[in-house]
């Protein structure tokens, strides 16, 4: 259905090929969080891998920074319809994290859990084989608190609510358990190229 009088402003051809359906490019870095920015002290920070309730491995901040580090340049896509191109992140890939812990994923799903009790579910297959990292740096500097510092999950090929800010743990779950937004009407997987925004999207 065409809207009378709406002409719109099409993105440049180059940008158009990189924009998933329904997205617009921004040069800003908007912030979306459901509550106040939590105050996370790196001195007290730990990162833990769990299998259900059972801890498998844990790192302090200095230990975490000593893990193998990787830098990526990726486009990111927020479900609120902005996309940002060529963002540069540095951190430890999930592959390197699992290897350092000597962990073979015991299930096919996990929940990323944050310091503000946010959580989000991600299939393990979307995190391994070079698809995701725990990032500590953005654009060459420590991630600012409002963008998720000291550390956030980065899963750039899924809508950005999956890239949990202020992440403190990954918990393997026996089944695909809905996280915070997934319980509130958002899609279980969130692939921007298939426009999986809301619960009933295919």
């Amino acid at each position: 259905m065409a809207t009378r009088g709406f002409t719109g402003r099409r993105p440049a051809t180059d940008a158009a090929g990189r924009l998933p359906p329904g997205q617009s490019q921004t040069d800003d870095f908007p912030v979306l969080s459901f509550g106040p920015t939590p105050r996370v002290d790196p001195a007290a920070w730990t990162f833990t891998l769990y299998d259900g309730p059972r801890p498998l491995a844990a790192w302090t901040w200095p230990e975490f920074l000593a893990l193998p580090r990787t830098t990526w340049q990726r486009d990111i896509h927020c479900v609120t319809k902005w996309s940002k191109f060529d963002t540069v992140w540095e951190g430890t890939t999930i592959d390197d994290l699992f290897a350092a812990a000597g962990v073979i994923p015991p299930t096919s799903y996990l929940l990323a859990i944050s310091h503000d009790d946010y959580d989000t579910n991600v299939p393990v297959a979307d995190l391994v084989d070079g698809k995701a990292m725990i990032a500590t740096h953005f654009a060459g500097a420590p991630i600012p608190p409002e963008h998720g510092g000291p550390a956030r999950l980065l899963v750039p090929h899924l809508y950005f609510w999956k890239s949990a800010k202020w992440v403190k743990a990954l918990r393997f779950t026996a089944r695909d358990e809905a996280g915070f937004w997934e319980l509130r009407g958002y899609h279980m997987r969130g692939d921007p190229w298939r426009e999986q925004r809301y619960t009933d999207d295919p």
Partner: protein
Amino acid sequence: MKGAATATPAPTRWVNASIERIVHQTPRAVSVFVRAPLPAHVAGQHVDVRLTADDGYQAQRSYSIASAPGAAALELVVERLDDGEVSPYFHEVAQPGDAFELRGPLGGHFVWRAEDGGPLLLVGGGSGVVPLMSIAREHAARASVAPALLVYSARTWDDVIFRDELLAARAAGRTLGVVLVSTREDPRPGVDLGGRLDAAALAGILARWGHAPERAYVCGSNPFVEAIADALVDAGLAPARIRTERYGGSASG
């Protein structure tokens, strides 16, 4: 956190919406009243809007709902962004009878139902007042006895969206209090504090209100929300009691 989730129906498919009327609220904000076959919303929710050009090109945006649940027409407020793609259409082109597509209602966290009660603190900056207006209207429509306070910071007196309705609600002296803060103007005694809404000003407002908020809803630009949410945490409010919604990015235009 998970226990706090309340049943939110899955959003509907895209539906056709027809513009009933357009009201220019301020030089930068219009209310677009639409009729659309959507499920009833919960105060604080938003919708997705999709516009299609003649050649099939589409643009999507999200807009907050200002009307109370159950209102005959859905009231969306569109702020004009000079560089925007969609907002100038609603300001300069759209007319009653024009049609576009809508999807929703959306958002299951920044919501308030009468049974959620209070004391309820609403803090809005600029067009961030829009979802709070839906909550304030629902509070009035349901004759809620929960103490509620709306603190609304706008650039100037003429940028105060819903000014007449808010002043009337304030004069009526019901359980909803209204504090206006026009940041670029001098105070208007009794109506407008003027000046910056910073941590000290907010603490003063809360002290005069005399209630400890059970729930706080903060909506506006990211710097505004960061500052207000931080000030509320400093004032002793538990972070889990503070719900935020932030505007930003070119996709809001």
